[in-house]
């Protein structure tokens, strides 16, 4: 996607991915869009890239040959992992294979205690031996994680020096630099994931950079991180573990931007494509972040990922619940006679039955077609012709007949079940995190999101649903509306009643200095810098902290009292109880430093208050709505001809190139000045 900062114009190009040379696809798309929009490479201000290269290299096992160095006695940390089975009753389960083979894992004599005191000095001679052995083994990358290094990084720092002396310019990932938080396996796993993908990601990004520079593109090259901020190529190549969820993060960022520009601080993003649906949460204008994440984990229908099936990382990741329910998800009847949807997908080949490419399995897309929600002659703007009779036959054979119901009922059933899985995902991201979905706006996008968003909102009593223009490319827009972001943290581990507020202020000042320096290197002027402070707190004895945001300004005694009372409230909200008499502990201080980059402005469409939507009316057709008891006549609109101010009464269908918006009976869609359709419950039903 290219945004013209002068005109606000947006240009879009899609190219097929090129698995043999993934960077080729991105370069190709960049050059093509420049050509199409008549912009020279030199005119570009910046380029942002979202990529799954980091995740894919782990899922496909294409990682660098990596060594692991830890404290003597613990070299099996990666093999032992969490010692659990990812599925309870499966006698044929597997543990994920370690990313480093055991013969490349080494323990070196040294030891700290939990307070960071040195109990045993580092055996430097042994470190040199290990370094030479790793050299002989031709590893490309090394991860270092010693016990208790999150309190005292001295031994890790020394090992880093020795490895550099012995092995020169080798890729090193040091746990105390990357993720200085306690619980050794999780820190080690984060470090090892970083080490194992670093050469792969570095080659990939360097490949892109080289080719773009050869085209005389001088703009800053940026990559989206899992936390929704962007990093320079250079920083991303060093810390690729921060960008494992680079792609999906963009969708939530786009949702937060859209919501903010429409005056909603709290929103739920709902991004449904061909194979999965992803739900994320925006609170107070910022995407919710988690640090409890596994790369490559197996998806579990309805409840996210199975614990222990992937590689945990402790870097900030935008909190997403992803489920196997996309347009291509297959519907089937199980051995107990119950209709199920997913997690198998018909993919692009053969695709849904209605594509007419030989697919026999009914999918969500087939069900939507049979129900009249999709236009067989205007799918992807008419690019793909859909065959209603094939969709009907597939649903009849695989679902309706085995269940003894008619095709329409079965098709509606497929949609309702898919919706229920999405409702669960939505509740997981909201209710289970302590938020009431009714306080949020729903942003529906992706090719299939607008088809289902209205129903999802109705199920959860969400008052407002927003369907942006061109929902199929909303995700890409997320890449261009983000900030440069650098996260820092310091572990404090002190009781709130025993800490000097001035010390906390000192810590934050120090973190801020790092952030300021990094942003300055990125070329951000002081006026474009912003710093957000958070304190992680818990009751003394607990292990899971709750993040409490701090207001800006210097930290003093009143701020501390406010933070503690905010913590009690957050605990009450999250778990239904608080213990105000119990001592509270401050675990980590966190600083997010943001550098503003130029954002595109949303383009406005012609505005005509009280406008009639009639000019955009394409016609009517029969569409199935369970709440109406069957097929009813619905108006069909051309989205591109809608003007701001128009109000569409449900049941209605709005068609555009890359998606279809379904407005249910009893709901209405108002077109705002940016062309967004804002769905609300109609005043009279």
């Amino acid at each position, binding site marked *: 996607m290219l945004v013209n900062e002068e005109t606000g114009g947006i240009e879009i190009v899609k190219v097929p991915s090129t698995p043999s040379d993934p960077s080729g696809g991105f370069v190709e798309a960049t050059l093509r869009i420049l050509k199409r929009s008549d912009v020279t490479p030199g005119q570009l201000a910046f380029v942002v890239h979202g990529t799954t290269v980091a995740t894919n290299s782990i899922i496909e096992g294409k990682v660098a040959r990596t060594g692991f160095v830890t404290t003597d*006695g*613990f070299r*099996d940390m990666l*093999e*032992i*992992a969490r*010692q*659990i*089975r990812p*599925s*309870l*009753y*499966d*006698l*044929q389960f*597997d*543990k994920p294979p370690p990313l480093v*083979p*055991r*013969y490349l894992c080494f323990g070196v004599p040294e030891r700290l*205690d*939990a307070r960071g005191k040195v109990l045993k000095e580092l055996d430097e001679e042994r470190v040199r031996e290990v370094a030479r052995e790793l050299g002989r083994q031709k590893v490309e990358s090394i991860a270092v994680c010693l016990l*208790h290094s*999150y309190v005292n990084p001295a031994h890790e720092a020394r090992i880093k020096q020795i490895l550099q002396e012995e092995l020169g310019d080798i890729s090193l990932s040091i746990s105390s630099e990357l993720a200085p938080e*306690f*619980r*050794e*396996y*999780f820190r080690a796993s984060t470090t090892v994931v970083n080490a194992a993908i670093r050469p792969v990601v570095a080659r990939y990004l360097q490949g892109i950079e080289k080719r773009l520079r050869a085209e005389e593109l001088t703009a800053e090259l940026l990559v989206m991180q899992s936390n929704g901020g962007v990093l320079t190529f250079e920083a991303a190549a060093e810390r690729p573990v921060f960008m494992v969820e680079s792609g999906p993060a963009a969708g939530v960022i786009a949702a937060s931007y859209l919501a903010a520009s429409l005056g909603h601080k709290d929103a739920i993003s709902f991004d449904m494509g061909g194979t999965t649906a992803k739900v994320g949460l925006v609170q107070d204008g910022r995407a919710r972040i988690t640090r409890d994440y596994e790369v490559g984990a197996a998806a579990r229908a*309805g*409840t996210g990922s*199975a*614990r222990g099936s992937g590689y945990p990382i402790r870097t900030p990741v935008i909190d997403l619940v992803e489920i196997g329910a996309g347009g291509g998800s297959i519907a089937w009847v*199980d*051995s*107990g*006679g*119950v*209709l*199920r949807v997913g997690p198998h997908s018909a993919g692009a080949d053969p695709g849904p039955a209605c594509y007419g490419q030989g697919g026999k399995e009914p999918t969500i897309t087939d069900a939507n077609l049979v129900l009249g929600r999709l236009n067989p002659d205007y799918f992807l703007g008419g690019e793909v012709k859909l065959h209603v009779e094939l969709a009907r036959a597939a649903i009849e054979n695989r679902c309706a007949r085995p*269940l*003894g*119901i008619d095709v329409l009922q079965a098709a*509606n*059933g497929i949609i*309702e*079940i898919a919706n229920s899985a999405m409702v*669960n995902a939505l509740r997981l991201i909201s*209710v*289970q995190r302590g938020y009431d979905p009714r306080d949020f706006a729903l942003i529906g996008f992706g090719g299939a999101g607008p088809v289902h968003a209205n129903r999802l909102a109705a199920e959860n009593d969400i008052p407002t649903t927003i369907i942006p223009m061109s929902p199929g490319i909303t995700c890409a827009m997320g890449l261009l509306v983000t900030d440069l972001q650098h996260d820092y943290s310091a572990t404090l581990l002190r009781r709130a009643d025993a800490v000097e507020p001035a010390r906390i202020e000192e810590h934050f000042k120090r973190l801020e200095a790092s952030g300021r320096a990094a942003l300055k290197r990125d070329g951000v002027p002081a006026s474009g810098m912003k710093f957000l402070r958070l304190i992680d707190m818990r*009751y003394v*004895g*607990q*292990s*899971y902290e709750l993040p409490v945001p701090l207001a800006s300004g210097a930290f003093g005694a009143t701020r501390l009292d406010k933070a503690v009372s905010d913590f009690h409230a957050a605990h009450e909200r*999250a*778990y*239904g*109880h608080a*213990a105000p008499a119990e001592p509270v502990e401050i675990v980590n201080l966190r600083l997010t430093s943001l550098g503003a980059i130029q954002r595109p402005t949303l383009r406005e469409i012609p505005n005509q208050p009280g406008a009639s939507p009639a000019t955009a009316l394409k016609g009517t057709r029969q569409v199935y709505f369970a709440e109406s008891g069957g097929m009813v006549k619905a108006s069909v609109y051309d989205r591109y001809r809608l003007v701001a101010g128009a109000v569409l009464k449900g049941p209605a269908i709005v068609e555009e190139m890359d998606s279809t918006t379904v407005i249910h009976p009893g709901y209405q869609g108002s077109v705002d000045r940016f062309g967004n359709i804002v769905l609300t419950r109609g005043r009279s039903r």
Partner: protein
Amino acid sequence: MSRRSSIDPVRFEVVRNALTEVTEEMAAALRKSAYSTNIKTRMDFSCAFFDAATRPIAQSFAQPVHLGSFVELIPRAVKAYGPENMAPGDMLVTNDPYGGGSHLNDVTVFAPVFYQGEKQPGRLIGYVAALAHHVDVGGGAPASIGPFQEVYQEGVIIPPVKLVEQGEISDDIFRLILAQIRSKRITAGDFRAQIAANIAGIRRLHELVTRTGVDQFLAYVEEIIAYTRRRTAAEIAKLPRGVYEAEGFLDNDGFTDQVVNLKVRITIDGSGVFFDLAGCDPQRRAPVNSTYAMTYSACAYALRALMDKDLPINSGFYQFVRLNAPSGTVVNAVHPGAVVGGWETQIRVNDLMFKALSQAVPEAVPAGCKAMMAQAGYGVIERKSGEYLCNYEALAGGYGGRATKDGPDAVQGHGQNTENAPVEETEGAYPVMITRLELIDDSDGAGRHRGGLGLRRDYYFPHDDATFTILSDRDRAGPWGLFGGLPGRKAYYLLNPESEARPLSSKCVVQLKAGDTLSFQTPGGGGYGFPGQRDPELVLRDVRDGKVSLQRARDVYRVAIDRSAWKVDGRATARLRASAAARGGTTHQSRDKQAAARAERGSR
């Protein structure tokens, strides 16, 4: 299903998913607000929802040992207290082994769930329950595990009593319970976390029922049970009919040195699956007695493991679990038998069930697994603070080899799925140092598919004396092999492994002096199929990884490896394997040839 009147097949799936989410939300609330490492990090807890008739309906991803024993506990506890004596906002607590419970550490907090409609009075729709293994419940040794002889030595026994009354914690009861317990501060926090879990469950159920309506909700619950019943019946019908048996033993009973004999007889016929444990030893005046609820959970696990992976588990499944465990035996103890080590019996019986079933479904079951809880508990009165600190954990071990693949190294097996306690968290919270946490090389039971490696964890107490309890097993023999596979290395419990290396019993309490180290070494899993048939490339990988020694590769697996190039020496391997075949193949004992042949078929 569509033919069954009021049930909409679509809403059905919606309600079923939502009920599972109820229990997952409970689990999240419990984990995140708990204080002890055992609960918050090791996940030694479970949550479930029961209907008003106390039938199990939904459960969280948790510990199968708990989930199975819940089935016995909740109906008995509710009946004992009387549902008519419970009101909205009440929560009950219990851990009584002879009231349907398991060992005293497993404390359950449960609550009736009333649905208050707009005009109707509150109507009982079911119960939510949160069970957690508490690090200490008093009794004769810290962490409340030890070689006790009757239940009264094991800690505070709590019959069902109201811990929360109309939303307020009953201070008298709470203080009375905490007075019996060493680790008061931590345990109080864990109790509050259990209460939080139930609050979350009730809140979420209320929302669900508001959407569906009470009558509809109850109709769906019936259908959820019927659905599982239909699928379970269909799955059971596919199992090969017959009578399958296996025998085994525990090292000792924890008080005397006598082995505890266990015998399992499983009958699969048209009416279902019947577990007959009549051949097990009489109850002991020692801690290895399992309660009926505990033994039941082993049967439930064994049966569930043979079913389709995505079968939802609820009353419709449990009703097929039929068990004969004569009272007064180690598998169904009577008052006042000690039960704290009953899980050792339970998990071994579980392993024996799979051994028996290997005759029926050889491709479905593993060779012998760790099959001991591997419990370690210790208490220290910290010199610095004077606080009595207790810790408890259960270690992983080798899993048995399977028909098509190796057994994983260092993993929990069967009904147990608790996590590894991070060393940094342990050392930050307790005055102990973990000096080693590693796989034990060469501990695998050799086989075509080898068993997983056992685990070694060494505990060192630098500054304080400590009371340490081992409640475990397998120090006489390692997990068995199947179809020509060899047994895994047995367990070792050593005091000061680098100096005196004094072997300790698998069940004992030892007083450690400051400066002592205790080394807990769990067994490797049994092998599956003949070691001489193992793919030489896999042997090479294991040797290179240091998991299998060069010597054992040659002597046991009959594979010669060229270490200079890290390659299999094909010719030498062929010679080794030919000479072994000429000598009659193998060094191990009897095997069921027919079953082995079936296993072969199954693995292709």
